[in-house]
């Protein structure tokens, strides 16, 4: 296709790094992993306190 004289040829900018990860919304993932983490902590605390109560 012929280029119009007032429109320069557009090429992707190579020197600017775009990190797609930073733009993703990972809030749900963060909440999910922290939920699992707190469940693990709760289980650990309950099992360890059961052990201590029987010492």
């Amino acid at each position, binding site marked *: 296709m012929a280029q119009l004289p007032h429109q320069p040829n557009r090429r992707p900018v190579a020197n600017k790094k775009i*990190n797609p*990860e*930073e733009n*993703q919304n*990972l*809030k749900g*993932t*963060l909440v999910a*992993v*922290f939920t699992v*983490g707190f469940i*693990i*902590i709760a289980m*650990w605390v309950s099992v*360890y306190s059961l*052990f*201590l109560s*029987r*010492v």
Partner: protein
Amino acid sequence: MHFHRYEKYWLIFGLCTLVVFLTIVGVNAFSGGHQPPTGMMTLDPTKVDQTPPFDQPGLKKVDDNTYEANLIAMAFGYNPSKIEVPVGAKVIFNVTSKDVVHSFTIPGTNVNMMITPGHVNTSEFSFDKPGSYLVLCNEYCGSGHHMMQMTIEVK
């Protein structure tokens, strides 16, 4: 290496919990003497009846409030099958097996150890409440495994 901001939060959180868990367990292991059942003594499993202290299995008084219970586990029972200790006594269990792998478990307590032939496993417990304590084998040891038990009478 690039990490997402949230991934950094999660890694720091994970590392901190690991440090906290290990510190609590480590400090209690030394200050409270918490350790898994352990024993270094070995013996010939075919000569259990001739090897002291298992040539005279049973309860032995160590001092005022401490007893040593030298017990033999076998298919499908313990020798002796009943011991009596006074309330408040601390009992050190030394248990070995004559045949296959058994266990020595007092439900509701922290006494739960594997009994391997050729080895003596040791655990201790203070019986502060009177009653009849059941001892069970929780390692499948054969067709009579479910019958394998003994009792500890605390009076």
